[in-house]
Every structure is written in C-alpha cells, then in structure tokens.
C-alpha cells in the first residue's frame, strides 16, 4: 500500500516530521516500510506554457514550436504530439527535469519538452500533450505538487483494516509525532432515503448505506485529484469513479457508484447469489456465481459482486447524469472466499477481507458529497441517506492492571500516565484508577484487531519503542532438558557415515508419478499433492530411492566414483489419518569401473557398523535391483532394510550399490551393553576345515551348518577364503575351540574335529 506524505500531512495538525524520516518511524512503531521515494519533484519546475507557433518538420511527424513559458522565456521545442498546435496551453518541462536535455532533433534545436499527462506522472493519458483550458504561461500546474510516497508492506497491514486508508495511517503518524489528528466530518443533510435497501443476511452484510445524486457531469478529474490517485498507484478514470477511489484510499472504505438510470426498480437487495447466476462485471468479464457469493441486486438481477467488483451495465459512463453511491460493509471471510474462488483480487476485496469498520460508511458518504460538489459542479443530492445497519456485537471494554502490563513488557518503571497517553493518542477510551485500567476500543480497531488485553500490550509497547526496554535474562529453573534419544542417535549416525567417506545429500520430499512407477512403488501408498504448481511435485515420497537414483545419475556425469547418503523421511499414506513418516537411511557407493562387488561389500560392512550383529540374506530382487545382487538386512530376526545393486537399466553408467535402512527399526533393535563377561583364562585351540561346495553355495549357509555341527566348544568359526579350481569350488574356515574352566586336551580337539568332518560329510 502506497501512502502520500502530503495526503497524510493534510490529516495532521502541524506535522513537522520530514518526509525522509517518516518511513523509518512507521517501520519502528506501526508497520514495515518497504521504500520511500520522491514523487513529482518536477512539479516545482514544470510550468504552464502557451504554444505560439507550430510548424511541421517536413518528412517527420514532428513539429518545431515556439513556446511562451513565462518564467523561462520563449523557447524553441520540438514536439511529436498529434494535438500540438499554435494557441494551446500545455505543460513545459525545462531541461534537467524528467530526464529532459537540450538536444538536436532531426537537426533542429529543442530546448525542453512539451509533456503528456503520463510523462508528467498525472495519469495514464499519453495520446498527446496535456491541454489546459485556462492558465498563465509560467504558472505552476494547479494542484500538482512534489510529494514523497511511502510504500508499506501489505502483509504487515493484514490485521489493521484502518491502515488501508490515509486517515488511519495519519492517526498512527499523529500519535508517533505527538500531534493532533484532524477529525473528518460525517454530517449529512436529513431527507427521505432516496432508495430502499433490503439486506437479506445481516451477518454477511452488516451495513449498506447509499446516497443519490442528480445533475452529474462526468468529466476528467482536476489535476490534483488525478495526480494524487496516480501517486498511490490508482488509475484516474473520471471524476465520479475517482472520488470513490479517493475515499477508498483515504478512509479505507471501498465505494461504488452506479449509473442510477440503469438500475431497475427502486430497491437495492443484498443477497447470496443463486446457483449459476451470472454477473457481468465492469472489467468486461462475466462471472458465474453460486450461493457462496454475495451480490448487490436490483429488480433485474445482480448489479455487482458485493465487496469485489461492480457490474458492467450500470457502470458510470459519459452519459451518466444521476448516480447512486454505495458505501457498504461486508463479512470479511465471505468476501475473501468469493475473491479467492473467482480469482479476482481487487482493491475493494483486499480491504473488506481485513474486516472493515461498519461505522465508516456514512463518514465516507459525507466526505464523498463534499468532494463531488468540487469535481462535478452543479451536482445535487436527491433525498437523504439510505442506510440499513445491523451493528456488530460490541467489544467489551478491556480491563487490565498496570502491574500486569509492566510484567508483560518487562518494564518495571512504566507509569499509568504513559499508558493512558499512548492509548488515548490511538483513540482508545481510557479510564484508570490506581493502576486498574478499563479501555474501550474504537470501532475501526474493534472488528477483529483488538479484543484482548494482550492486544493492548502491543499498542503500549510499540509506542514506547521496544528499544526503550532493558533486556533482562529470564529467571528460569535450572534443569537438564529431556532430550529425545533420536537426536543423538541420528547425529552419531551422520558422523559415522562421514567418517567412512559418505557425503550427505538432501533431497525433496516430492516425487513424480513417473519416478514412482519406475521403481514399482504402488501409487495408492502415496499421499498426493492436490495443488502442485510445478511438475515433479505430485506425490510425497514413500521411498528415498527415486531421488537417490537421480543423485547417482547426476553425479556419475562428474565423478568416477563417489559415496553419498541421505537421511530422510518416507511418507506412507494412512487413509484420512496423518501418514506414517519413517526415517530412512539410503547410502550409495558408486564406481564407474569394476565389477561392483567391492561396493556391495563396503555397504555390507557399513550395515554392520550401523547395526552391529546384522546379517544379510539373499532376497528376491525387485524390478529396479540387480536380479542376483539383492538382499535383505536382518537384525534380531527382523528385516531392517535392503542391500542391493541398482539394475544396470537404472543407471546410465557404472555400478551403484545401495543400502537402505529403516532407522526406526534399527534404533528399536539396538541393544545396550550389559554386564561384562570375565576374560577367558585358558588358552584356545584352532583347526581349519575346507569344505567342497556347489558353484552357487552361500557362505552364510555353510557357516550356519558348521555352527550347528561344531558343538558347544566352538568359540568362533571364521571364513578364511573361497577357492575355485579344476576340481570345483571349496571354502575354508577356521574353528577355534575353548572351555571356560580348563585347557582342552588334544583328544578333545581331535574329537570335535572328527565330529565336524563327519557332520559335513567329509
């Protein structure tokens, strides 16, 4: 929202804060200022000028003119405007302003510029140079003044309906500067209501007020009004519409002017739309409405979408001679829903959705009458105010204690007088006895913004200035925080992984359908994003692997080999419940060359360091896995994840081994160290056995069989090596024997050895 300094200053008695300071003050006390910029500084220098002669320059669309500029003397200026002609009064911009220089155009000297309204920053009009009906060469342009525009971040005004107009912001500035705010008169002459108003739902429309005028002249607004609207980003249209926009920007009260001759019947009805009802709007679009939208209707149907946009057929046009001027109040959420649904955000809807003050409508109409009388000479009010008002429930006075306010702010020396002065400067009603406050809230703050004593802490705090509080350490109990074990577990895991050479990646929580399909992940297991704005965001990931696969192929273009890992959450749909979020680890060891075995065994070793005691068992390979290189990882009889190599079809080059572990399970199955076992006192004996095995026999199976056959004396059975020769494949193991209470005799060792050999059929 843009604010004009001049406009603010008109509402404050004796404002002395310079324009350059005002942005910072507003930022520190009220709302965030995004920028301060000069507007129309050139109006100090631009003058009214009379074109004395205008001769076309042959072969061009230009004319060379001689211009009486009064203050600057007679100047020769080259002008390209189609309406440039001898005798006219226009605006002369001297060199040095608006980027104008003394130049030669087509070989002709040009000293300054004749300007259009757009070039002057008055309106969007740029079809020709501006024309004045009257004026003296050398005079300043009436009503056009240099100004400073302060831009305030709309987000920081979300809770302040009153700050969507200059008068509300002026109240803040007046309070900050310690100057009085000038009141706005709200008196209207009495008279019979010029129109009948019927509000069908007072919750959706608490108030609808209107005035009727006749003998209206529709014409461009005076320059000062055009410039003012333009300076705050509103386009001047005609004097009637400009007045409504002016008051919206001044009082935050959106208004609408109807061509009264185009309204049917003598009654305005505020009602919800019928299903499928059409409303042609003044932006040229026709909107299809439903019962969620509120309309303003006459006997013929909707003439406007309430609080959002006016209707097209009853819009003000050149032939308009009578108008109905609306100032109404609508339910914020309803306007917001309609505006969101129609994808139509207007200056009006933006204001109404902030919960505007119903008290404001009549004030705006009174001010509009005053302004219309200036911009449309001869205009006459017909009858009196039409006003259907269903006041909102009053906000109860807020009570609080000075001591409470001091404790909330942390300002022990805060006085009752300070609090009273601040609240009164912001138009709150204050009664105070011995530190007990009773505060009444002004109507424009009572719609939503202020209802609790905590809301008043902000009012007092910001006006004192938070910089005037003395920072103080809180007095709190000294306790060891109850830390969740996952935190230190995951931190330790990350350290372990980096120590082993793995680099951490973060991937998005999203995958697209193609990614899920490629890995055969069932679509119904996924939570779906209803409103993705970009491709690749349709689904929430049920596996880290789709994005890990992408990491592999991306990095394979840059590296011969690499190791990386991600710790992230799988998100599995659970119907209407919140989904199950399971932390997983995915670790990758990639090599562009080699047979891939080393990568898989490296990850197997990694699994053993993360989940000590885990085993790896071959598993039926999934579609994306190498059919002969896939296994489940098992800890204490429970599957905790998978170890596999990506199917060659999944990687563009090289071999990628992957370890995918469910970290919830790994943590749950971890065991803490128990009581220590006394160290062995007697020596052990060992012997080796070599077992002939089938071509694809699993070492794990042979080991398991040996364990079964070796008996209780076998302390350890260790795989030594695998041998493949002409006579087939064999594996060698070393079996270590021992007893807790004695040294084994040679006979005992021999007996175990024989037992093992016969068990294995050797």
């Amino acid at each position, binding site marked *: 929202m843009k604010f004009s300094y001049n406009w603010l200053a008109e509402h404050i008695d004796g404002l002395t804060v310079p324009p350059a300071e005002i942005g910072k003050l507003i930022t520190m006390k009220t709302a965030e200022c995004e920028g301060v910029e000069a507007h129309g500084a050139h109006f100090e220098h631009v003058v009214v000028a009379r074109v004395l002669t205008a001769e076309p320059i042959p072969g061009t669309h230009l004319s060379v003119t001689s211009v009486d500029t009064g203050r600057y003397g007679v100047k020769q200026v080259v002008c390209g405007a189609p309406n440039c002609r001898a005798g006219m009064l226009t605006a002369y911009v001297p060199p040095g302003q608006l980027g104008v220089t003394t130049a030669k155009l087509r070989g002709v000297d040009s000293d300054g510029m004749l300007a259009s309204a757009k070039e002057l920053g008055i309106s969007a009009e740029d079809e020709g140079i501006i024309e004045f009906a009257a004026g003296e060469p050398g005079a300043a342009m009436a009503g056009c003044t240099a100004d400073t525009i302060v831009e305030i971040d709309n987000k920081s005004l979300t809770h302040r309906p009153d700050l969507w107009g200059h008068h509300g912001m002026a109240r803040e500035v007046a309070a900050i500067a310690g100057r009085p705010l000038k009141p706005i008169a709200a008196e209207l002459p009495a008279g019979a209501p010029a129109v009948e108003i019927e509000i069908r739902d007072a919750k959706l429309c608490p108030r609808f007020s209107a005035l009727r005028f006749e003998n209206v002249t529709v014409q461009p607004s005076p320059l000062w009004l055009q410039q003012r609207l333009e300076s705050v980003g509103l386009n001047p249209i005609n004097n009637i519409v400009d007045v409504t926009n002016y008051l919206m920007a001044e009082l935050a009260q959106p208004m609408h002017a109807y061509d009264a001759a185009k309204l049917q019947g003598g009654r305005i009805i505020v009602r919800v739309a019928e299903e499928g009802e059409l409303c042609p709007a003044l932006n040229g679009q026709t909107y299809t409405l439903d019962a969620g939208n509120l309309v303003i209707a006459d006997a013929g149907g909707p003439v406007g979408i309430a609080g959002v946009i006016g209707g097209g057929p009853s819009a003000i046009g050149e032939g308009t001679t009578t108008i109905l001027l609306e100032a109404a109040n609508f339910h914020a959420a309803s306007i917001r829903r309609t505006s969101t649904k129609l994808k139509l955000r207007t200056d009006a809807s933006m204001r109404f959705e902030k919960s505007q003050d119903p008290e404001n409508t009549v004030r705006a109409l009174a001010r509009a009458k005053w302004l219309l009388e200036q911009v449309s000479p001869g205009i006459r009010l017909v009858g009196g105010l039409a006003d259907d008002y269903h006041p909102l429930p009053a906000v109860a006075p807020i009570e609080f204690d000075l001591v409470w306010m001091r404790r909330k702010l942390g300002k022990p020396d805060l006085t009752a007088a300070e609090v009273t002065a601040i609240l009164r400067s912001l138009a709150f009603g204050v009664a105070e006895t011995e530190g007990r406050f009773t505060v009444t809230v002004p109507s424009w703050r009572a719609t939503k913004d202020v209802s609790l004593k905590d809301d008043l802490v902000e009012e007092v705090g910001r006006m004192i200035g*938070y910089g005037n509080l003395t920072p103080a350490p809180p007095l709190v109990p000294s306790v060891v925080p109850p830390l969740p074990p996952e935190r230190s577990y995951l931190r330790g895991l990350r350290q372990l992984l980096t120590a082993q050479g793995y680099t951490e990646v973060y991937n998005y929580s999203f995958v697209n359908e193609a990614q899920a399909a490629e890995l055969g992940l069932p679509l119904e297991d996924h939570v779906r994003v209803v409103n993705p704005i970009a491709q690749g965001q349709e689904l929430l990931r049920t596996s880290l692997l789709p994005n890990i696969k992408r990491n592999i192929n991306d990095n394979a273009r840059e590296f011969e080999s690499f190791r990386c890992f991600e710790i992230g959450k799988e998100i599995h749909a659970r119907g209407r419940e919140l989904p199950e979020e399971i932390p997983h680890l995915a670790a990758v060891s990639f090599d562009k060359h080699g047979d891939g075995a080393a990568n898989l065994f490296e990850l197997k070793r990694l699994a053993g360091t993360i989940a000590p005691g885990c085993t790896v068992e071959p598993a039926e390979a999934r579609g994306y896995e190498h059919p002969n290189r896939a296994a489940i990882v098992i800890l204490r009889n429970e599957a905790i994840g998978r170890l596999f190599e990506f199917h060659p079809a999944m990687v563009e080059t090289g071999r990628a081994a992957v370890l995918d572990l469910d970290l919830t399970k790994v943590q749950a199955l971890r065991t803490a160290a128990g009581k220590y076992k006394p160290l062995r006192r007697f020596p052990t004996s060992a012997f080796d056995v070599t077992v002939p095995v089938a071509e694809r026999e699993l070492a794990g199976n042979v080991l398991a069989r040996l364990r079964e056959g070796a008996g209780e004396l076998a302390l350890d059975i260790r795989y030594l090596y695998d041998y493949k020769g002409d006579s087939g494949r064999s594996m060698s193991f070393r079996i270590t024997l021992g007893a807790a209470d004695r040294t084994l005799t040679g006979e005992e060792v021999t007996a175990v050895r024989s037992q093992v050999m016969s068990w294995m059929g050797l």
Partner: protein
Amino acid sequence: MIETQLSELAAATAARIAAAATAEELEVIRVEVLGRKGRLAEVSKDMGKLSPEQRGAVGKQLNAAKQTLEAALTARKTAFDEAALRARLDREWLDLTAPAAGPGLGSLHPLTQIQAEIEDLFVSLGFTVLDGPEVETEFNNFDALNIPPDHPARDMQDTFWLSNGHLLRTHTSPVQVRGMKKLGPPLRMIAPGRVFRNEEVDASHEHTFYQLEGMMVDKDVSVAHLIYFMKTLLSAIFKRDVTVRLRPGYFPFVEPGFELDIQCLICQGAGCPVCKQSGWVELLPCGLVHPNVLRLGGIDPEEYSGFAFGLGLTRLVMMRYAIDDIRQLQGGDLRFLTQF
C-alpha cells in the same frame, strides 16, 4: 703337544670367522668348532689323558680360546644382522606422497551442520529439541496458531494441500502446539525441521526449506526477556556481539508480534548494499505467545506467558557460506556438497 694343537685350531678358526661371508657360514663354523660334538669338545675329551698339572693349564687355554671364538662369532653375526637390517630398510623405501587407499572423509550437509550448532547452543541453555511431522493437520498448522479458515494471514503462506485432507506444514510453528501438549508448562523447546511453501523455485525461492522454531513458557516471561535472549543467542551464532532491534510485525500466533532485525554485520549499521542502506537486516519473526495459542496448548494464559520465534536455518546457511543459489542445497550435487 695338545697346547700347540689348540693354538693352531684357535688361530685357524679365528681366520675362518673373519673370512666368513654369510651368517650361514658362521653357523657352520660354530657347529664344527664350538658345537657339542665340535673340535673344542673333542679337545676337552682328550684332556682326561693329561696329568692334573697339564689339565689345569690346558683347561685355562681351552676356556680362553672358547671365549675368544664365541666373542668373534657374536661380533661377526651382529655385523651381518645389522647389514641385513640395513639392506631391508633400504629396500623398504616408500613413496608417501602416493595417494592413500580407501575413501576420504565425507561431508555433512551445511544445513545439518548449522542445525547441530544451534541445537547445541539451545541445549546448553536448557532447551529440549523436538521433532514434528512434515505432513500436518490443518488444525495444528493454522487453527491452533490462531489462524482460522478464511483468515487473510493464510495468504502469507502458500500451502501444499494433500489428498488425505492434510497439508505439508508451512512452518515449524505447529510443533509449538505439539510441544506444549507433550511437555506442559514451564517449558523450553526448539523444533528444527523441513517446511514447505507452494512457490515457484528460483535462485532465491524454494518450496522446501528449513526453520527452527523456539518457544519458552514460564511465569512472567516478558518482551525484555525475549530481547535479552535473542541478543545472547544471535551473538553466539554469529560469534560476535550483535545489536538487535524489535519492531512491530504481524503473526497471528503471537501478541505482540515482532520482526527482529540485527544491525548489519557487513557495514556495522552504516548502510551498504546488503542491508539496502538501512543498516539493519531482517532476521526473524518473534513475539509473546498469543493467549489463544497457549490455551489450545493446554496452558492457562493467566498463569503463564511465553515467547516464541522462528529462525530461518536455510537463510543462515546462505548467509554464512555466501551461497547465491538456494537450489544448490537440495540439488544433490556432490561438487557443491563436498565443500562443507
């Protein structure tokens, strides 16, 4: 007679020891002369035939010869051993500038690092660390934070809505609600984590980023406490004394709400392009917890008050490492990630 034999043997053996070229030759000599069945043993066997006087003299001579020869053998052997060791050591020359086998150290993601650093700071101040789900209920993400449906504040946070009727959390603030219910007052908690906004991605905008929510609820927690706390914390994060200021900011779940700015660390407040000449950099939103939020968290706002803040971890990482493209953080490019 025997004395002569002995001297000749000693002299001849000494010469052989001196001439031996290998440790093996020495061993042959030792066995032949000094061994149990060696030449000296034979001499001592013959001593029985001698008179007691002769035996004494020959015995002395024998012992002397034995000692001399053993010393010579040992000395010679030591020389061989030393030479052998020297030769081995020489052979074992190694080029230590050649690369080490096996992987080097991996890197932790910069967000992990900064998160751990900040968690440690808070834990040292008695805060617990909580986690919350990425998928949240609309109630926890909005309603419980005093943002009812159709509240314009919902516009501030473009939301990913989900097929199950829930949403991807737009901020870490819902963990306030979970934390209050879980811990009860008084409490001190932080909740770092991933949050989502439905935005187009470019160099400075991401739909996925990281925040750290903080909350402290106790009796008489005030704005002055909040300022003290933020100043202390930010000085620790930036490892220098920072100047902070609070100004009004609107967030429905706090009242009063603030934007906290720190004095620009680049220009010390003098004004520079980083702070857009203002001398201040907007850093985090904070405020006193709104009484409605306390109440929905099961805490009586008449008895307790609290402050809450939200720190942008992604933003801190980008500031610390001067990262100019936010997309790098979730791009998975190891050329980028191995720099940290």
